[in-house]
């Protein structure tokens, strides 16, 4: 099987970057690719395997994730893309039956090592969930809570400033500046999700993981969040799971295609959507299954 042989090699997008520049951009890609996009390594994954009890959910995943880019993970339901995402901040630790082998390396440190404190990891790798889940507290508290918990702010003025910055960065400031003390749950779904993004960036992480952040939202809110992702990648590395291929094509610099717990193809988004190297990728992208 052709796809099996590709698994053994480390998949690095951009190998074919030069060739990409010469190609015409694929249709339906509103964002021009930032040619100065960094290729600095953020997270290195090698031979990652994951089992839920006895059933294997991820097999031999080896990919590199790059700083200040949006990487989209696509694939049919149950392909392991969300599971993989949760490996990056060890959210899988919360599920008792999970066992993991392989390397997930960030900043030269093994994320899964016994010495690594998952609290420290999650401070640097934030997360936004599928369903907006603001705390049932005020909008202000939703954002101020984590920085205060991590001792990032001591004075009230610093805290106010940080809340404002996070809300501005998430494009929510003008909508909520007069009602910061109202409960976060009183906002609309799209606003709640942006509040969750603001909450995540308030801790100033390096990486933000997004697990299908727009799947519970209406098209307008979805567009707002996609614009936001495009802005946020100037500051953060974003890894997003989506099963909306158009979304991946619109927002992602790189795309990884997951199928049955394996990475079938990982490449520059444009290349992936215009000239997929694998037959399975092509079938999925053209809507033959998924």
């Amino acid at each position, binding site marked *: 099987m052709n796809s099996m042989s590709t698994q053994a090699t480390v998949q690095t997008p951009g190998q074919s970057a030069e060739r990409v520049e010469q190609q015409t951009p694929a249709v339906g890609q509103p964002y021009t690719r930032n040619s100065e996009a960094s290729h600095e390594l953020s997270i290195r994954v090698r031979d990652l395997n994951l089992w839920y009890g006895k059933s294997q959910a991820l097999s031999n995943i080896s990919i590199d994730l790059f700083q200040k880019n949006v990487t989209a993970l696509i694939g049919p339901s149950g392909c392991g893309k969300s599971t993989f995402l949760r490996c990056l901040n060890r959210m899988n630790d919360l599920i008792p039956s999970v066992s993991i082998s392989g390397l997930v390396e960030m900043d030269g440190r093994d994320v899964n090592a016994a010495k690594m404190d998952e*609290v420290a990891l*999650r401070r640097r790798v934030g997360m936004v969930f599928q369903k907006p889940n603001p705390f*049932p507290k005020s909008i202000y508290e939703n954002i101020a809570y984590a920085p205060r918990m991590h001792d990032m702010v001591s004075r009230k003025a610093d805290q106010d400033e940080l809340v404002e910055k996070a809300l501005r960065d998430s494009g929510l400031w003008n909508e909520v500046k007069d009602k910061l003390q109202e409960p976060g749950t009183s906002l609309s779904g799209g606003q709640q999700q942006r509040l969750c993004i603001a909450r995540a960036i308030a801790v100033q992480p390096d990486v933000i993981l997004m697990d299908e952040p727009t799947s519970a939202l209406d098209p307008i809110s979805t567009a707002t969040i996609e614009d936001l992702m495009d802005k946020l990648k100037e500051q953060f590395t974003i890894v997003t799971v989506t099963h909306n291929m158009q979304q991946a094509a619109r927002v992602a610099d790189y795309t990884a295609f997951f199928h049955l717990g394996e990475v079938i193809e990982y490449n520059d988004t444009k290349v992936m959507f215009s000239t997929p190297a694998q037959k399975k990728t092509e079938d999925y992208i053209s809507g033959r299954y998924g």
Partner: protein
Amino acid sequence: MSDSFDQISQQLKRRHRKSARLKWLSMGALGLAGLFLLWFFTDMLIKGLPAFQQAYVETEISYSEEAAKDARQAIDSDLIPIVSRTEIRSIPLLLRNEPDRIGSRETRWLLANSEVDQYLKGHRSKLSDKEIATVERLVASGQVEQKFNSTFFTQGDSKTAESAGILSAVVGTIMTMIVTLAIAFPIGVMTAIYLEEFAPDNRFTQLIEININNLAAIPSILFGLLGLAIFINFFGVPRSSPLVGGMTLALMTLPVIIISTRTALRSVPESIRHAAFGLGCSRWQVVKDHVLPLAMPGIMTGSIIGLAQAMGETAPLIIVGMVAFIPDVGASFTEAATVMPAQIFTWASEPEKAFVEKTAGGILVLLTILISLNASAVVLRKKFERRW
């Protein structure tokens, strides 16, 4: 060809009849239960409300030299069988404490004997014809009256029915409940937090869980035996004290608090925990800052219901000696005390007719407290009910 409407209706008739029958049966059961409840409450009110009224006699007391020695000299000899013995007995004591009263006279409303009280309330009494004539005369002249029975709420137990009150039992109950809550609430909540948020799901924790559920179903008298064997005999906690009673009841309340706390914790959506973990909260921070505040109303409701249950408990307290004659209001957690249900139990076993009234009156006080506790639990739940 499919069935016509008429054919279908024919078949449906039987099914409708069946469901109607079931509906009437269940309504009947509910009605019967309601009827019993109504009967119980009316009976209690009819028997218990008179306990809050008591006969008083307006008496002229002469604090003479002789009265200091023999109290019977202080009042008119006709009134001696009518006035409560407790009142007469207290005269020499009063004169000993305040000697300058000697030689003075005073007219006061004194508690009447319980026989007089029962006679006036239309019950059988042991009064002689002569005494009845005196009472009738005094009633006519307005010197014997039914007044609000403040003694019932300001005094402890007494061997004379008219001066027996529930205060010592109420204070005993409050002290016992303080001990129960101080022990059961923190231990129960922490246990539940551990089991729900920290413990791995393995055989050991499953075993603990099953045992906690079983603990809630253990006959309460066994907890009394445990209290006797461990707290009194082994640790030497003073018997009959609110301390030992509270500790025993805490054992009984623990499973209720643990189970209700676990339910409350489980009802906090997983997404809140994920959000907190995702931000880098430690497990304890997730619990303390996010889960516990949301679960608190549920925990409080469960604890109040557990407390109300413990408050109505008598059997384990009999074993640790809290069913005792306690005339004085308790002052410390280690002195002998009694609790409301135990007081009711004591009064119920008195042969005198007047104590029947006290029993019903005590039940009314206990029920009022229990109902208000349960109502506060309902209010708490309604007020903080949250939807996600």
